[in-house]
């Protein structure tokens, strides 16, 4: 299968270039079809690679430059099941977005297709690469195409400002990553992750390695939207067209998290071995802060894309906390979370586009009750929300269960409570918005929600139904993610291989087979653990209570309301004001966060 490895990257990129070269000749529909065909081909190859990598790691040395006496000369793609799975998810979402855009995008559809294909190819490359500088190249290609897509609606100030905040903060993050890469090169003379890991493994980490680690992880956390590096995400999502949001939230943010795990296990696990708890504490802390702040901000939104964006931030926090446990079982949980969340959140963003097309606004108070004539969209919204709660056995349930078990092993059992609260609050906000839009429940006005610029769509003769089908496909796939037979055993096996650094090194540098070709592929059904089921139900109860509060809080006795406003008001106002939309503020938060992470690790590791 080695020959197939470059294809999920190269096919979309060539198609993008061909679309530009033939822009003046080919009609729009032919161009769209080329784009869809390229994305479908890429998805197919990514799935083939995923199937092949389940037996053993698949390698491709570009240019045929195999390692010379254990020294990597060129660049390798190294596909293990988790990396190949990320690539398949990214390519699959890319395909759904292009199909959706067949009717959704009215103007500039060629440019849109080109940038979506470039973004898809870059994401696949990022997931598959085994070379740290090559990672930086795909990181930047993802960035550049996404910045342009975020500014797609150039006639309005909001999208432009969102794109600027996105581009500036992520560019600074990328420079930090690059600086970290340069330091690693200074120490190890290598850019291949396996080789870096081998050289660094000779002795415990010193200052240089710690600073390099802090720089790379911080840069990746900017892309992964971790507090306090997360501000750009909500601005960029509020401004981007709905299908772009689906890609950014469904795959790009998760790739940031994925590479934190990749770089930790391939390069830093051995030198930081003695200090694993120091690494764990900082990352778990950031993850928990992100999960909770994201959930709180989610609750305060009325613009649907902004609301979903904060829910993504919250989930990214859970994912980081899971990675931070530095244990294969939690890693398997994160992998399942990425899969289920990517499909569900992607589908929900696509549904936002349906709401925009049909109801012409996406502000929950403006379209109050207007969704009654779209009951099917309401059902999809509800299903997507329930999938994100982790109600057994749907959606992110399996992920929550694995994370809970992993956390308990390391004395972080309380993480499951945080996860249940965060996902419950986010789901409550989504239920509230859905109830207002599709059922017309609750108050028409709500002074607790942040007034944000609405997105307004002009009248158009597009039906929401075909769009709704694409959104529905994503949501149903996401709901089913937990109950695929054998997925639990397979992801756990994959995560164990992901974390097995020495076998990875032998496979990359010496061509040893990594993985067990005879591994018995299980098709066992999901076993539901009682405690995890209770956490899922608890999250649902929190969601229901949150939604009810959001809809009917005016009916509460005034004494309770004013007491609540006195105690909760000031901290909430402070957090809300921090999300100012000003790029200078964001950069200051970014620098402060980077300083804090680097300083804590410099002092403790």
């Amino acid at each position, binding site marked *: 299968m080695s020959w197939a490895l470059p294809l999920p990257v190269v096919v979309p990129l060539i198609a993008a270039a061909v679309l530009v070269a033939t822009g003046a000749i080919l009609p729009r529909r032919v161009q769209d079809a080329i784009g869809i065909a390229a994305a479908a081909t890429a998805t197919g190859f990514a799935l083939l690679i995923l199937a092949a990598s389940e037996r053993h790691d698949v390698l491709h040395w570009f240019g045929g430059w195999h390692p010379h006496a254990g020294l990597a000369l060129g660049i390798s793609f190294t596909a293990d099941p988790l990396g190949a799975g990320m690539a398949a998810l990214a390519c699959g979402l890319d395909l759904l977005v292009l199909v959706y855009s067949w009717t959704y995008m009215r103007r500039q559809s060629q440019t849109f297709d080109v940038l979506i294909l470039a973004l898809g190819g870059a994401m696949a490359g990022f997931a598959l690469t085994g070379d740290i*500088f090559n990672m930086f*190249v795909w990181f930047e290609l993802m960035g550049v195409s996404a910045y342009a897509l975020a500014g797609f609606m150039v006639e309005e100030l909001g999208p432009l*400002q969102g794109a*600027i905040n996105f581009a*500036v903060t992520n560019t600074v993050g990328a420079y930090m990553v690059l600086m970290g890469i*340069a330091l690693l090169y200074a120490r190890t003379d290598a850019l291949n992750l396996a080789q870096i890991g081998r050289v660094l493994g000779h002795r415990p980490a010193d200052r240089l390695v710690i600073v390099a680690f802090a720089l790379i992880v911080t840069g990746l956390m900017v892309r992964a939207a971790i507090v306090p590096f997360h501000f750009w995400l909500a601005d960029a999502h509020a401004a981007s067209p709905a299908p772009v949001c689906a890609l950014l939230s469904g795959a790009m943010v998760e790739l940031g998290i994925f590479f934190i795990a990749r770089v930790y296990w391939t390069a830093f696990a051995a030198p930081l071995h003695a200090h694993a708890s120091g690494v764990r504490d900082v990352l778990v802390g950031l993850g928990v802060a992100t999960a909770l702040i994201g959930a709180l901000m989610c609750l305060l939104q009325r613009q649907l894309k902004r609301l979903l964006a904060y829910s993504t931030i919250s989930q990214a926090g859970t994912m980081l906390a899971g990675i931070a446990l530095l244990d294969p079982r939690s890693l398997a949980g994160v992998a399942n979370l990425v899969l289920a969340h990517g499909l569900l959140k992607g589908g929900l963003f696509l549904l936002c586009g349906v709401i925009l097309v049909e109801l012409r606004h996406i502000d929950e108070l403006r379209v109050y009750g207007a969704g009654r004539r779209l009951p099917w969209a309401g059902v999809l919204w509800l299903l997507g929300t329930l999938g994100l709660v982790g109600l057994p056995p749907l959606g992110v349930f399996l992920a929550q269960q694995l994370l809970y078990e992993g956390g308990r092993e390391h004395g972080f059992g309380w993480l499951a409570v945080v996860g249940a609260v965060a996902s419950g609050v986010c789901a409550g906000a989504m239920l509230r918005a859905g109830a207002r839009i599709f059922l017309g429940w609750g108050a028409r006005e709500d002074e607790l929600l942040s007034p944000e610029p609405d997105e307004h769509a002009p009248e158009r003769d597009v039906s929401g139904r075909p769009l709704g089908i694409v959104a529905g496909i994503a949501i149903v796939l996401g709901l089913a993610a937990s109950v695929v037979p054998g997925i639990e055993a397979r992801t756990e096996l994959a995560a164990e291989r992901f974390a097995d650094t020495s076998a990875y090194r032998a496979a990359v540098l010496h061509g040893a087979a990594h993985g067990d070709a005879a591994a018995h592929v299980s098709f066992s059904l999901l076993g539901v653990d009682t405690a995890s089921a209770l956490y899922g139900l608890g999250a649902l109860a929190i969601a229901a209570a949150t939604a009810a509060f959001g809809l009917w809080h005016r009916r509460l006795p005034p004494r309770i309301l004013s007491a609540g406003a006195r105690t909760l008001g000031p901290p909430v106002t402070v957090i809300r004001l921090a999300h100012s939309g000003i*790029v200078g503020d964001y950069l200051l938060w970014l620098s402060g966060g980077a300083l804090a992470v680097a300083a804590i690790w410099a002092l403790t590791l």
Partner: protein
Amino acid sequence: MTILVYAVVAWVFAIGIYGAIVSRNLIHLALCLTVTQSSTYILLLAIGYKHGAGAPIFEDVKLGTAAVDPVVQSLTLTDVVVSVTVIALILALALDVHRQSDSIDPDEISTLNR
């Protein structure tokens, strides 16, 4: 000498970000980012430098002559292109912002957008 080179890298990196944080003009902000990026060029090239060594080009010098590290030079080349592209995008965004709002002060734009 070693300290000096690396101190310059840290200084250029930090001062570029400082400039971006206090910037009142998007074009100035874009240029501050190029300053920050310059620190990565200096770092890469400084790492690969060898005293008394020539360029890694063996056209009129014999193979085996001491030459500086060629890898960091090729990384820098990639880095330069990346920098140009990001700056081009930010400048284009700045131009559009100016067209919409007659302002290129990031603080002012954000209040206009509220």
